[in-house]
């Protein structure tokens, strides 16, 4: 286990923290202040250690506690319910700052916020009373347990079951690739009931719940991914989140929207880190008697990276503003922002490695971590391909009217099993 150094010290090899990326966002004074605080937090507590955590495939408990102590794990929980109650744009800025520093840490914020959001929005009063304070304080960490060996983008393949018992439900099944599964205290588990699929909050120490660590992941290696197995786990009736069947749609859609929004901003931050690293390298590395930055083909790469990342960021901002004003269009804006930002981040990361050449492929280069992490952004919370089908369906519906007929299974979204 490694521990972050004391505040204000740096013992890692990361670059100096850049000033917060403020231009063009028209943030409020409070949002600017929050953004500066997030950048400071990320620069002190996260960025210097990101490569080490990546190599060790672990997040130390200290960084989880630092996130909790800073109120970041309660970001989506309103202040009157114990959270820090960030507005949507400010929550986005937090994700951007953490995504800039370390996508594994940002992944923790993502999945935890998804669970907190589901409990806050759709949990029963008993469930909220039991879990919301701990999730808001970060004394309990949540993880999102949807994917199975045979179910991922297509939730119709869910095999985990939830049988009703006299006091609640008995859950059995396997969940795969669960981000933060190795240390989460509670899982939002999706399982099939006799009346349709449903979501349940399952405590890690429930008898029958076991977690197998997954190592050697391509990216977000420090996110401590795990395979979670449930063997007859008994949970009380109030562990049900939302309702069985149709109700699952709103629970899953709400949580996944939080996740997509978080990943979108995190990807924008990752993209920015790529642009910064490439610009620094291009300005200092000389070939053929001049800096790389003066070679036109390198300039093209830098231009594509900077413009793509900036455009994605504006889409994130638009999504945040629509979420903040409770505009129904936010749903589609979040999809578009995540799609654009994840794709842009991967291209920027690939280009950053290209600009670095062999230096970018070495084990000590942050850009090779950024590239591996960026690929994950195109897969989590809706693959690029699922997003393409969903966004296209939305575009046609809005601009050309409904094409009557059954929705192809790949167009239903990631959670339409209860139609």
């Amino acid at each position, binding site marked *: 286990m490694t521990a972050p150094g004391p505040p204000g010290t740096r013992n890692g090899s990361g670059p100096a923290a850049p000033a917060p990326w403020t231009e063009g966002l028209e943030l409020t004074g409070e949002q600017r202040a929050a953004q500066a605080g997030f950048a400071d937090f990320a620069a002190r507590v996260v960025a210097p250690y990101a490569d080490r955590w990546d190599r060790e495939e672990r997040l130390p408990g200290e960084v989880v506690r630092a996130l909790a102590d800073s109120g970041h794990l309660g970001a989506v929980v309103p202040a009157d319910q114990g959270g820090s109650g960030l507005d949507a744009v400010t929550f986005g800025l937090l994700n951007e700052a953490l995504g800039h520093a370390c996508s594994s840490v940002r992944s923790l914020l993502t999945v935890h916020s998804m669970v907190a959001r589901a409990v806050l929005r759709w949990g029963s009063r008993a469930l909220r009373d039991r879990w919301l304070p701990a999730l808001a304080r970060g004394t309990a960490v949540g993880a999102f347990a949807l994917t199975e060996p045979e179910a991922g983008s297509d939730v119709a393949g869910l095999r985990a079951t939830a049988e009703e018992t006299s006091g609640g439900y008995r859950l059995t099944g396997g969940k795969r690739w669960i981000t933060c599964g190795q240390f989460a205290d509670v899982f939002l588990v999706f399982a099939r009931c006799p009346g349709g699929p449903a979501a349940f909050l399952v405590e890690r120490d429930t008898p029958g719940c076991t977690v197998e660590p997954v190592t050697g992941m391509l990216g977000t290696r420090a996110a401590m991914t795990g395979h979670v197995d449930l063997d007859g786990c008994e949970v009380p009736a109030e562990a049900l989140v939302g309702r069985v069947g149709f*109700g699952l*749609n709103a629970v899953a859609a709400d949580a996944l*929207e939080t996740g997509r929004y978080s990943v979108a901003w995190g990807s924008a931050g990752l993209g920015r880190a790529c642009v910064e690293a490439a610009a620094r390298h291009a300005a200092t590395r000389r070939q053929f008697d001049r800096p790389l930055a003066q070679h036109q083909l390198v300039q093209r790469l830098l231009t594509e990276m900077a413009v793509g990342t900036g455009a994605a960021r504006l889409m994130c901002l638009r999504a945040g503003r629509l979420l903040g004003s*409770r505009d129904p269009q936010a*749903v589609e804006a979040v999809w578009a922002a995540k799609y654009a930002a994840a794709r842009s981040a991967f291209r920027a990361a690939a280009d950053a490695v290209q600009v670095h050449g062999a230096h970018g492929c070495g084990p000590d280069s942050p850009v090779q971590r950024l590239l591996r992490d960026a690929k994950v952004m195109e897969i989590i919370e809706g693959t690029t391909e699922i997003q393409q089908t969903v966004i296209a369906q939305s575009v046609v519906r809005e601009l050309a009217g*409904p094409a009557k007929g059954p929705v192809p299974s790949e167009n239903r*979204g990631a959670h*339409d099993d209860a*139609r």
Partner: protein
Amino acid sequence: MTDTSQPQARESIREFLGRHLSGYDIGDDENLFETGYVNSLFLLQLVVFVEETFGLEVEDGDLRRENFCSVSALTGFVAGKQAAAGAPPQP
């Protein structure tokens, strides 16, 4: 907040759906989820629309297909929530 009278609620719902279906004139009892017009992601938009337009809170117990599946269902759901909240009686 939109007027709470039921005809106006119905009109608001129809207008919202029409706007999101490129002006398609959906029948009051056409099932939104079974005819292939929308997927479940649209449910989130419906929830936000209903909450913001009518000043309601959609709770976990409200997440029933029969509350969201058509213009008539949504109108009835809104009326029921407003009555339960002590809103003025429907005309």
